[in-house]
Structure formats: C-alpha cells, structure tokens
C-alpha cells in the first residue's frame, strides 16, 4: 500500500535562505511520525508546504500514491490534510459548533433559497461533532463556549475541527507546549486512538521525551535537510539531540548542591491584579536566598506573568509586600529595582526584552545606557558601548555578523543570549528569569542553562519561572508550584517527582482537587 503522504525532493528557497533542501518525508497510513528539529531547521516550512501555505520550488507531493499540487490550504483540506496549529485558531465567544463550522457552514435546506441570508444548520453539525467526539473519545461538548474550556479541551476542539473536515492526515504542531504533563499524556492516548482508527499523524515537538512516548518513527531535520529517520526503539535521547544539533550535547546540567546564603528576595502575602483588574496572584509568600535557584512551576496563565511583573515593578502590587535585600520594593519603579541589583530576563523577549529595530549593541546596554561609562553627562559614549558589546558578544557567544546588526534579524537563540548577556553582565544579586528558553534550540538551551547555574554558583539568588517541567526539574534547588494564582506547595528539587509536580500543576494536592 502506498504511504498516506509522500513528499519527495522538496526544495524551498527564501531570499538568502535555503529553507528546505531536497527533503524526503513519508507518512505511512496509521502511524504517528514524529518530526524533530531546532528552530529554523525547516520543519515549519515543510509542514506549511504540506498544508498548502507555501508552494515548493522543486519536489513532488503524493497522497496515497497520487501526485498532487496544493495551491492553498483549501486544496490540502480537500485532500484530507488537517493541521492543528500551536496557537489555536478559535473564536473564544463562539460555541464549539460555531467554531467548527466556521467557513464551512451548512445551511438549513428550507431556507437555502435565501442565499447568504439562509439559516445555519447548527443542529446537524452539532450531531456530527457529537458522533466524532464519541468515535475518537475526544470528549468535546458541541454546545460549550470555547472561552469556558480549558486549554486541553480547546486543543481537542481543534482536532475535531480537522476531523469534521474529513481529515485523514493530521499535522500537530508542538501540541504539548501549552499542556500539563497529565494533559499531554491524555493527548497521547487520543493520538493512539486516532491512528488505531486509521488516521495518520505528523507530530512536531522539540521535547525528546515525547518522541519516545508516542511515535512510531522519528525524523530529524537540521539546516533545511532531512538528517535521518529512526524508530524510538533504536534511538536514544543523546543520539537524537546530536542529530538535531550536529554535535554532542549535554542534556543533563551538572550542578553541585546549592549553598544557600542570606535571604535576597522576600515576598509576603503578595496580591496582584491582571489587566482586567481580576486578582491573579493570591496571597503568595516565598523567599529566595543567595546561591539558590527557586523554580516556579505551573501551567502558563496561572499568575506567573503577573507575579514576575509585580516583582520587577512593571505591574502595581495590590496587597502584601516585597523586600529586596533590605529595601522595600513593593511599589518601586523598574529602574529602582534594577539599581538595587536585579537582573530580569522577561517572558516575552520581543515584547519586553528587546527593541527589535535597534542594533545588537544598543540592546546590550538597554538598562544601563545612562550610566558611566556608557554615558558622559547627557551624551552617549558610543566607543564604550561598542567595547562592551564586543566583549559580551564574544563572552556569550552571540552569533551576529556585527554589533551593528539589528537584533530583529538574529535567530531566537541569539536574541535570548543578548538579553541574558545584558542581565548577567551587571553585578546582580537577584536574577529573575521567566521562560528563559522558550522556543529555543537545544544548543542555546544548554548554553543558557549553564549560565543560570553559573550565576547561582557566584552567589546570585535566582528565581526561575518556567512552564517546562524538564527545565524546572533540572535547574531548581527548590520548586514551588503555582496554580490559579496561589503557591500550592514548595518541594525540595531532589525529592520531587514528575508525577507529584504534574498533579500539583493540575491543582491536586494531597489527593484532593483545590
């Protein structure tokens, strides 16, 4: 039997970049084929070609042995290809049914003569959704409003949406990035069920563990080329990492036991509101000591962002207090907090961390441009800034053609290195890092993790916030789990297990749901 999907010799050039270089990829019917690769390896380009968003410069695609061409996603959908994007394409106020039929509305036969004004046939659509949900055990309620659904359920709605359009092949783009470990496991069960009933799945991820948990075959891309295909039985984590990066990678950070010193940051009964004035941080208290890493684990959106913004002066505190060393910084400005010795690697490097239209060198002094030696009086001292930039580019291995290159044209990993370099170069007493490696490649993650541990060993207090459980577990000395704005529990990292943390992240403590 011919493969469900076969792409041969796919080549795609963008100005100055060869994004796909004669890539061969095949998906057998009824298998889960994992696709692994760093950012910029060409995974997304390949998937966008398979989904009809891009047209390949060379190469052919065949569906069950029949050569075909997609000029738009519409063609791909018609040929039975469905894609679940990393960022859901759902309209929150609408119901599940409305979201699913959006763009494919079926009309009530009695009113069809009215053309655009005909009534929607929601009932038969809902009925089909119920059937699909039942058939693949997706547990989707067609009448629920999407905004009321948890993230995992929204993802299942996306899957139903693809199935509703009669997809035989599903492309899942980093589907676990927004899930708790338990939710991810549930997703894997669903994926298994889908292939058992004859669907085929392309599963994109950068988490090696998940490759072993669910796939039948694993393909690795690097630098626009397909490096190789293997099976979970034959592969090891080290081997896959090496295939991705092209060199040996140390996956587990080597670190000594922490030697906690004085309390640097003390947070007591902190309350913070989000932009809509809903309290999203409730009564949070903790301490971070010099020379230790306190990890804050939790699924995204449980108040971590507001917590970090409050600690760094970007968001007003509505209750409780924050003390940094011996200063009360509850209502301090971002600059005061920086000047007391805080480094902050923000969650969103494009929104807060960098000015993308500025060159690398200006971004490297973004927080210190006004201080000697970078400024003399009112004037900026470009020579000193350039020296500093040269030094940091070398020290932090920032791959940039020059210090005058616009930061926006660097890769994500190098952009993040610019921020880390800037924040660690100062003599900081407290380092707050929020999602420091989101979306980065394995090589950059390794580098940034090492720097964070080095900062700890230099007696910096580190507050690490991350939704990646692996990151939290490999770096932290103590782990606090945040759920719905509260810290449910704080564990010693060496004693904490993945299961224990996963349950806390889902709000289950001591066997009871909070």
């Amino acid at each position: 039997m011919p493969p469900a999907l076969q792409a041969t010799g796919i080549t795609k050039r963008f100005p100055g970049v060869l994004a796909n270089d004669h890539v061969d990829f095949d998906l057998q019917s009824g298998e889960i084929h994992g696709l692994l690769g760093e950012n910029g390896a060409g995974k997304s380009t390949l998937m966008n070609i398979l989904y009809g968003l891009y047209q390949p410069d060379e190469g052919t695609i065949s569906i069950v042995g029949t050569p075909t061409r997609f000029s738009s996603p519409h063609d791909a959908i018609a040929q039975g290809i469905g894609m679940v994007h990393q960022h859901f394409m759902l309209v929150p106020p609408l119901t599940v049914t409305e979201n699913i039929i959006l763009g494919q509305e079926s009309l009530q036969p009695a009113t069809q003569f009215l053309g655009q004004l005909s009534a929607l046939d929601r009932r038969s659509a809902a009925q089909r959704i119920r059937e699909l949900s039942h058939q693949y055990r997706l547990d989707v309620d067609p009448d629920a409003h999407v905004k009321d659904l948890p993230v995992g359920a929204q993802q299942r709605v996306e899957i139903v949406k693809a199935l509703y359009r009669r997809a035989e092949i599903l492309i899942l783009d980093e589907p676990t990035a927004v899930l708790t470990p338990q939710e991810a496991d549930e997703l894997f069960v669903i994926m298994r069920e889908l292939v058992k009933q004859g669907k085929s799945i392309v599963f994109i991820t950068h988490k090696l563990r998940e490759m072993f948990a669910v796939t039948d075959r694993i393909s690795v891309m690097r630098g626009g080329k397909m490096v190789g295909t293997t099976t979970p039985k034959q592969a090891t984590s080290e081997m896959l990492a090496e295939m991705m990066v092209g060199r040996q990678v140390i996956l587990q950070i080597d670190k000594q036991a922490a030697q906690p010193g004085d309390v640097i940051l003390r947070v007591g009964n902190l309350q913070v509101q989000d932009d809509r004035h809903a309290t999203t941080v409730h009564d949070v208290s903790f301490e971070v000591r010099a020379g230790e890493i306190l990890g804050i684990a939790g699924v995204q959106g449980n108040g971590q962002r507001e917590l970090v913004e409050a600690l760094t002066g970007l968001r007003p505190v509505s209750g409780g207090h924050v003390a940094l060393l011996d200063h009360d910084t509850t209502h301090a400005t971002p600059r005061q907090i920086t000047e007391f010795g805080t480094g902050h690697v923000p969650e969103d490097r494009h929104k807060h961390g960098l000015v993308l239209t500025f060159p690398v060198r200006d971004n490297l002094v973004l927080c210190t441009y006004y201080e000697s030696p970078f400024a003399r009086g009112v004037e900026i001292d470009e020579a000193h800034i350039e020296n500093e930039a040269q030094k940091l580019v070398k020290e932090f291995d920032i791959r940039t053609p020059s210090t005058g290159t616009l930061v926006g044209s660097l890769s994500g990993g190098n952009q993040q290195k610019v921020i880390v370099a800037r924040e660690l170069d100062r003599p900081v007493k407290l380092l707050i890092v929020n999602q420091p490696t989101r979306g980065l490649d394995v090589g950059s993650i390794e580098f940034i993790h090492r720097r964070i541990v080095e900062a700890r060993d230099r007696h910096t207090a580190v507050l690490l916030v991350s939704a990646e459980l692996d990151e939290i577990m490999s770096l932290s000395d103590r782990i606090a789990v945040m759920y719905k704005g509260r810290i449910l529990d704080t564990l010693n990292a060496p004693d904490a297990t993945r299961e224990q943390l996963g349950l806390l992240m889902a709000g289950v403590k001591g066997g009871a749901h909070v």
Partner: protein
Amino acid sequence: MSNLAAERAARTDGRATLLRTLDVLSMPALAMFLGFLGGAIIIWITSGSLETVGAAYAGLINGAFFKQRGFSETLVAMTPYVFLGLGLAIGFKAGLFNIGVEGQFYIGAISAVWAGVAFPGLPAIIHLPLVILAGALGGALWAGIPGFLKARTGAHEVITTMMMNYIAFRLAEFVVSLPLRDPLSTAVQTLRVSPNAELWSLWQIPERLADPLNALGVALFCALCAFVIVRWLAPHARRVVVGGIVFATGAIAFIALPPLVKVWWLFDDQYDRLHIGIILALVAAAVVWWLMYKTTLGFEMRTVGANPNAARYAGINISRNIIVTMAISGALAGIAGTIEVLGVSICRCLPLFFSSGYGFDSIALALLAKNNPIGIVGGAFLWGAMRNGADLMELNSGVSKYIISLIQGLVLLFVAAPAVVRYLLRMRAPSKTEAEAPLTRGWG
C-alpha cells in the same frame, strides 16, 4: 547554531543594510517621482493638453529657482519647513503624532511678538535670543499640555493637539485684535517688534555688524560652532588646544568680519527677503540629529517610540518622556512661527489672517524624510521650492497652484504606502525581519 547559520545571518545582514539604505534613499525619491507623475496626469486630464503639463512644470522650476530672487525665496520658504519637519520627526521617533504644529507655530509667533514688543531698547545680542526663546517656550507649552494630558490620562495626542490648534487660532485673533493691536495701523495687526528683535535679512548684515555688540554676538556664535566642530573632529584634544582654537575663531570673527562684509558682501538687494533664519534652521537640524542619536534623552525617546514595553522594562519613565518629547517638538514649531514673524512678515508683526499652512504640509514632509534630520533639510528644500514656484506656474500655465498640495498629497500617499510603490514599480518586498516601522501607533 552552526557556522552556516552565522554566515546566513551575515548575508541577511548585508542584505538588510543594503535594503535599508535603498529604502532610506530610494523610496522617498521614487515617491517624489510618482507624485509628480500623478500631478502631470491630473494636469493633462483636466487641461486636455500635454503642453500645459510642460508649461506648468517649467513654470514651477522657473519660479522656484531661476526667476529674480527665486532661489532666495525658496530658501525663505524652506526655513519654517525645516523647523516644523524636525518637530514632527522628533515626535514620530518617540511614537507621538504631533498634528498640532500649526497651532504651536501660531503660539510661537504670538509669544515672539510679545517679547519683541515688550522690551524696547534691549540690544540685539540679548533681545534676539530672547524672542527666539520666547517663541520656543510658547510652542513648548502649547505642545506640552497635550503631552501632559497623554501622560496623565492617556488622551490621544492627535485629538488634543488638533483641538489645541483651534484654541491657538482664536487666541491669535484675540491677541492681534486687542492686547497687542497696533492702534495706529488701519490693518488689524499687532505692534511692530523692536528693530533689535528682528531677524536680520542677509542684505542688512554689513550695517548690523557695524554695531560692535552685534559683532560680538556673531563672534560668540562662531566660537560656539568652532567648539562643536573641534569636539566632533578631535574628541580627545587637550583643553588648552580646544580653548585656543575657539578663542581664536571668536576673536577673528569679531575683528575681521565687520570690515570684511563692509567691502565684500554679495547680498545688496533690499527686496531680497532671505534672512539668517536659514542658518538657524541648519543648526537646528544638526542639534536635533545630535539629540536623537547621541544623547541619553534621544536613546530614551527612540526606545519609547520603537517599543514602549521594552522602554518600561528598561526603567525609562514613559510619562516624562512623552511630555519632554512633545515640548521639544512644540518648541521647534514655535521657533518656526517666531522666524516667520521676525524675519519674513513685511510689518515685522503678526497680522490678522496670518495663515501659514506650513504645519500641515510639514506632516507630509516628515514622513517623506523618514524622520531623518538630514532628509528633512532636503525635503524642506523641495517643499519650499514647490511652494515658491507655484505662483509662476499658475501665471504661466493657468494651472491652479493648489496642484502643489495635490502632488504633496500623492507623495505622502506613496511614502505612507511603500507597498503601492513597490507594486507600481514591480519591486521586491524587503525581508520579513525588515518590517516597516510604523510611523505612529494607533488610537490606543
């Protein structure tokens, strides 16, 4: 990341630099070209003959450069455009759309007239800087109010500055008709400013410099310029050397200039309105460039404009920055008004119906120049030439001079919509990383 990727980044960087340079230089030129082409088509359609197009553009060029005093008049018209364009550019760089420069121009004019009338008998060395300062302060205050409102309440500056414009127009009418009205004149206009507060016309310079105090003022100005140039060319020169050069320049200017201009001075046409404002305009462009790119304040303003979230993260006080930026922007507009009153208006006073239209033209100018101070000087020259040549164009070809506004509007359209130009000229779009920086943000 592999070496390959670094190489790729190097290539894209080279490409980006090239595209950026091309974008900075070629897009405005192409927009100008398309603007004139569009103007030609419209003249052709409305007049029905290609000859009219030729006659109109020949008249425009003739009027702008070649008729008697044509070139000086272009420079005269260019001067306020430079100041206003710089004011708008500073705002745009910091993410603010100061649409109220016209009003600030008026307030600057009023303040300058008041300062010029209120202190008769002051020597020019004090009075002239004083009136310019008064104009700058008036404009700064007028723009600072919307700045304060935005910083404090988030009121959008496009709305508030526009409303401030109307207040300014009516306030100017009030001041002209009542407190500062010249009772002896039949026309409704303000009192004439003291002769020492006037901006010197170029033909007046020999007689002005005959006064030693004026010569001293000019010498001080030359010394200051020398100081800046020496600091720029040799930043690490010893203090003694710098001091020596500066002192020597000042001394030579003081001793040699007055007799020199007395025997050798090209400008003796008493009807030529060209005045020293053009020199001030060039100085202002240099100062604004320095402010934007070489000072911590400029760094802050550009950061706030490029990414306000990152600016907040970096500890920059955004509210203060908005107010300061608006004040500087308004100060430049105020100086433009000052110069119009003190250097150009025949009565050296503010008449009723002192309508300029400079402010609104300047918005298109700042966009055309991509907020680059050097570009603004070049663009202001073009704008001045068009404004100045329009009369002869109308006379020679019968094409209404308002076609100029139409051409400027088309230029603005093409500048604001580079995609249209690229489509019309079949150019390739720049890479994604080189996304166009928004000129101003929305109504948030």
